């Protein structure tokens, strides 16, 4: 029943995660880059939200504000063979792995220059070249895919992992449990990361899940090591996630971590009851005291790594980048009508023999 980090072999002082090897070795530049990456997410989301409200986008927009430390902290641990996959609240992950604001914003605007050519939308950003596998809309549906990405890593004998993110509501989908058993049975280097922001849409954790200890603890029944992380502390995210990454790399074993976090806004931008199912003071408390960006900024100031001026500069740059990405998006063309039936079949797109044999599309 003991969570993974409690294991003394990891030599981590749970009262000061900054002292963990993986954090001690951070250069000031990298620390600043982590800050910058979080700010970029925040500004991207704000800008997207504004334009969503102005009617420039369709569908949903699930903002990541408040959870930035998770995607950024986890992405900062990724090497050549570490992969990432997540659910629909995926803008933070996309930017963290190095996708450009331009391609992401253009996707939201439904343009052909978008990362998914305007076909995926807000929930479906992808960058396989950056080991980033999306962006998935069916709750829990990405969990077997994550196991599969890890399967490949193991199959090829690589030292790698797949970090598979999901929400606290997703733990009640059967596919997740099937994945846990498969991950344990096949020794897959997959890390399930439960981003626990306390709510699935308008339903609190207590109203959606029964559990003991925490949600991650369900892994114990599969003899899979689990851990619980305070998501607002970037040092803690990195320190504890690194244990899981190491386990994946060195033992090819899975881990389940649950990271406590909070979303500052509604489930999606169109969340009619965002301020009803969560008390105003709860929201305020988290914004005031648990905002990962502010906490990291303060920490870096304490450490003397940045000054307020540096922070302001980063923020200004991020804002400008977000605005520019909107300009880029708006200047981009929509897909053409013919594009609707492209990217359906590889063989058709590539004009192979197989793509030319038989009829593939059935409109008259």
């Amino acid at each position, binding site marked *: 029943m003991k969570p993974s980090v409690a294991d003394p072999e990891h030599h981590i002082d749970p009262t000061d995660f900054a002292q963990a090897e993986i954090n001690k070795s951070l250069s000031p530049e990298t620390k600043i880059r982590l800050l910058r990456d979080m700010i970029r997410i925040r500004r991207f989301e704000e800008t997207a939200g504004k334009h969503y409200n102005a009617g420039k986008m369709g*569908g949903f927009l699930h903002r990541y504000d408040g959870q930035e430390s998770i995607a950024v902290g986890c992405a900062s641990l990724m090497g050549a063979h570490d992969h990432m996959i997540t659910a629909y609240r995926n803008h933070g992950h996309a930017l963290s792995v190095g996708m450009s604001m331009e391609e992401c914003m253009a996707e939201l605007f*439904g343009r052909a220059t978008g990362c998914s050519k305007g076909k995926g939308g807000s929930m*479906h950003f992808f960058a396989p070249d950056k080991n980033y596998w999306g962006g998935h809309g069916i709750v829990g549906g990405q969990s077997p895919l994550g196991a599969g990405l890890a399967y490949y890593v193991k199959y090829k004998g690589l030292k790698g992992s797949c970090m598979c993110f999901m929400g606290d509501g997703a733990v009640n989908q059967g596919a997740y449990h099937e994945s846990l058993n498969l991950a344990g049975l096949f020794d897959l280097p997959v890390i399930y990361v439960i981003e626990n922001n306390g709510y699935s849409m308008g339903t609190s954790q207590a109203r959606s899940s029964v559990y003991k200890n925490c949600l991650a603890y369900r892994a114990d029944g599969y003899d899979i090591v689990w851990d619980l992380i305070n998501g607002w502390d970037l040092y803690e995210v990195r320190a504890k996630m690194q244990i899981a990454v190491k386990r994946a790399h060195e033992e090819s074993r899975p881990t389940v971590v649950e990271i406590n976090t909070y979303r500052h806004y509604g489930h999606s931008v169109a969340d009619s009851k965002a301020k009803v199912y969560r008390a105003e003071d709860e929201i305020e408390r988290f914004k005031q005291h648990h905002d990962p960006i502010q906490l990291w900024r303060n920490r870096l100031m304490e450490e003397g790594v940045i000054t307020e001026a540096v922070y302001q500069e980063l923020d200004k740059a991020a804002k400008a980048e977000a605005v520019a990405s909107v300009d880029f998006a708006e200047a981009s063309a929509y897909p053409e009508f013919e594009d609707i039936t492209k990217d359906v079949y590889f063989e058709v797109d590539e004009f192979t023999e197989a793509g030319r044999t038989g009829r593939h599309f059935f409109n008259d």
Partner: protein
Amino acid sequence: MPVITYREAIRHALDEELARDENVVIMGEEVAQYDGAYKVTQGLWKKWGDKRVVDTPISEAGFIGMGIGASMLGVRPVMELMFWSFAYVAWDQMINNAATIRYMSGGKINCPIVIRGPANGGTNVGATHSHTPENFIANTPGLKVVCPATPYDAKGLMKAAIRDNDPVYVMENTVLYGETGEVPDEEYVIPIGVADVKREGSDISLIAHGRAVITCLKAAEILAEEHGIDCEVVDLRSIRPLDEETIIESVRKTNRALCVEENKPFCGVGAQIASLIQDRCFDDLDGPVGRISAVDAPAIYSPPLEKLQLPYPEQVVQKVLAMV
């Protein structure tokens, strides 16, 4: 007659059936305290309380299966799928357990469950959220499936579905939720399996269900005004059971038929209707039965493109002009 929205019409049906039968229970994700993701169940939890209006975790296979089990003993669950697209994680429960329990038990059990929610594209929610599986369901003996196009039909069919002693799957449409129409105050029920001729005409039969009916009605107006073509619009309302006679009667009168649907073309409902018409009206037809469906690809996100992916009035107009 009062004019209310499609959403309200469904809500009234649920409310009235909650009042009529104490075994009726509304269940689904966010249906209670949140008032429903699309506000269909707004106010019902407040009025009826925890026992009758129940929020579930995100476990469609689990809670729909639970509803099926409870229905075998006499609870009458009305389960909301936040999107019909999420049916696929519960597909085994819906296609095996609900559809076959009566058969496999030699008629000892029946399963009076309703599964309802929106099934449509057109709101830019992408490929995984825009499924319209009425053809899959209608392929499955043991199940019934209805696709109301108007507030009036939505209310009447919902009440029939809840009273029906077989599983009835009701496909609504988020694009229609805000549409208004006349709905009488007096209680009424629309029998499942009766099509509705939404517009009489003599030149061609437009056969549709769900939102495609509205598209056809708009096209019919343009065709009448601008081209002097008089379309009959047959709203199937129910896919299974199907009102074949109304279809046939219409085609025998107009001698031409065009099936319009928002589903993908291969083995869509239009295929079944075309197959029916060519069989039963072979000598009545002046030309082949036409079909319009969604452009055959996963639902695209890009808003202006998705508009073109689904049937739209002008497209129907052009097709009709090419046919008559």
